[in-house]
């Protein structure tokens, strides 16, 4: 049996395990990743099986984690580092942006930086400050980094394999509120390319584009809209840098309408980039302006308000209606 039903967290765990078995150069590093198996148990059991030399509990220092991962990569290792929560990546942001992203270019392509930075991100788990943010645009904006986010267990598994195999730095955003969502994983499948978008639901009236945690909400919105006779297509971007604009374009040219959905603030977010590109590419196919649904220009609110802040079914459907009204 190569097909298993796994929660996303476990799919990533299995993927890390396979990568470590296949390639002795793969290392796992981060705070609490060893004995505890990470605060979300994504690295559960790995230290027991691969030892402290390969599953490394690091000092509590994010700049140190990424900075030393860069050095290890320069020495031929393939570190997969865990940042415990989205809001704690910023002490490492300097290393990621000023060093990790640029070193390959500065060395005239002579050195490779196969570092994967895993970041559980996004809201919806009722957490305190700094535990619910969606900073992906801050990374996608930086040339030299690749940025991906799976939305289901199979992608979680395969995209991790591909991220580790990539010779480029990959920021791997894990939708933490979906960690416990189960899905089928075929560990012997032949996966599609890492940066290719995927159509989740076929439709003809409007395209919803999302990634990570919002894919599920968009699929639900499409199902709800279908009951009202609207045919919504849902595209899971999977990768935020690069973006598979061809796939988005093809879908939009079929439906004539586009709504982009993400948890991150709309202002300067991924939706802005997609709206601009699709307006350029598909101007004459659009029946309505590209709309965006996302977070507000406000700090992620306290837990008791997060349902108001996070785009839910209602807000997505509202945008669908507004688009269809043009």
């Amino acid at each position: 049996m190569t097909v298993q039903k796994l929660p996303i967290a476990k799919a990533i765990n299995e993927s890390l395990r396979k990568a470590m078995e296949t390639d002795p150069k793969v290392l796992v590093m981060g705070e609490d990743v060893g004995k505890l198996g990470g605060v979300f148990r994504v690295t559960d059991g790995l230290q027991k099986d691969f030892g402290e030399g390969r599953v490394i509990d690091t000092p509590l220092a994010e700049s140190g984690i990424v900075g030393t991962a860069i050095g290890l990569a320069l020495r031929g290792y393939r570190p997969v580092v865990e940042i415990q929560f989205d809001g704690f990546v910023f002490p490492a942001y300097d290393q990621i942006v000023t060093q990790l992203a640029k070193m390959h270019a500065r060395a005239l392509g002579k050195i490779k930086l196969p570092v994967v930075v895993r970041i559980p991100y996004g809201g919806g788990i009722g957490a305190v400050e700094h535990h619910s943010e969606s900073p992906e645009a801050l990374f996608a904006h930086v040339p030299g980094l690749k940025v991906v986010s799976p939305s289901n267990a199979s992608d979680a598994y395969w995209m991790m394999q591909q991220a580790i195999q990539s010779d480029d730095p990959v920021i791997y955003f894990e939708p933490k509120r979906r960690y416990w969502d189960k899905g089928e994983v075929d560990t012997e499948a032949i996966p599609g390319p890492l940066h290719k978008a995927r159509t989740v639901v076929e439709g003809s009236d409007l395209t919803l584009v999302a990634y990570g945690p919002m894919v599920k909400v968009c699929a639900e919105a499409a199902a709800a809209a279908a009951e009202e006779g609207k045919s919504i297509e849902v595209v899971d971007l999977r990768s935020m840098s690069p973006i598979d604009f061809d796939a988005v374009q093809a879908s939009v040219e079929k439906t004539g309408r586009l709504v982009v959905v993400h948890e991150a603030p709309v202002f300067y977010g991924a939706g802005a980039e997609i709206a601009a590109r699709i307006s350029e590419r598909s101007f004459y196919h659009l029946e309505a302006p590209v709309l965006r649904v996302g977070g507000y220009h406000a700090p992620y609110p306290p837990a008791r308000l997060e349902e108001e802040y996070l785009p839910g079914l209602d807000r997505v459907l509202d945008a669908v209606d507004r688009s269809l009204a043009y």
Partner: protein
Amino acid sequence: MTVESTAARKPRRSSKRTGSSAGKAVADPQLVQLLTPEGQRVEHPDYDVDLTPEELRGLYRDMVLTRRFDAEATALQRQGELGLWASLLGQEAAQIGSGRALRDDDYVFPTYREHGVAWCRGVDPTNLLGMFRGVNHGGWDPNSNNFHLYTIVIGSQTLHATGYAMGVAKDGADSAVIAYFGDGASSQGDVAESFTFSAVYNAPVVFFCQNNQWAISEPTEKQTRVPLYQRAQGYGFPGVRVDGNDVLACLAVTRSALERARRGEGPTLVEAFTYRMGAHTTSDDPTKYRADEEREAWEAKDPILRLKTYLANEGHADEAFFASLEEESETLGKRVREAVRAMPDPDRMAIFENIYADGHALVDEERAQFAAYQASFADGEGK
């Protein structure tokens, strides 16, 4: 509340020690201790306190009430009233001892676990619970008690404390600043940078590290290979390790470090050697990484028990005192429980409040859109 009883008092680090109990033993000079786990007064060559029985009872009361508050919060989390709680169980002496060493005009920069220090500052304990309930990100005005907001990003506040202290020095004031952080935090670049800045600018700041032996699942050995207090030496200021379960020693050492800061002699690192008896937070499961025997060994060093033994043995407190404190604890627990249950969810529009001091056009626009959207549901026109 008698929170002022010792807070307002001038530091009294007497050069000639005047302890009452005869034949005091001398403790390990590397670990400042004035009260043994058995509740015996001991001497240290450099530090002492000279407290009245009333003051001693005050410290005991602070610790008991802080523990009661903490236990109530843990229970409230279990009952679903709080989303999370970071317990200080076992760290009462470190927090009350250092907190009671402060003067009103001193400024505190805490982590997220300094409930006992907040108590010493006169912050209403129910204010601490808003962020753990998820109704706000802070819950108090830092300037009303000179107690800054809790900081979740590890180590950040040590730099804020240092900058604040630099400002105090520029102003020519004689107050001092204290920054709390954990043993895990000592690995952060920000903490190293705060050591550098405070030393270079001779800032009147005390770094108070509560080494509770763990940073979630990682023991202190995963952060450092030398005792933490020795770090200070490399930056050019003194470091001292104090028995963090000994409230008297924590008081004496912190007072001395604050006085040094006030005299313009710069920073001190205090490492309070203590133990986190509970889980890291209510989300954590220490059975995954920690042996029960370890906890049991530390339970024998309980900070509250040892002071109780001392108070009782010296005749500084009687049954009536302990009984009335018990009653007071229950009243506090009840007050906290009721306050949390009555804590309303924030108004939705709070999402858009206090983002900018001067306002921002985009926020105004989004606030209006949000209000209109919410109103559409109220009108029954929403989906």
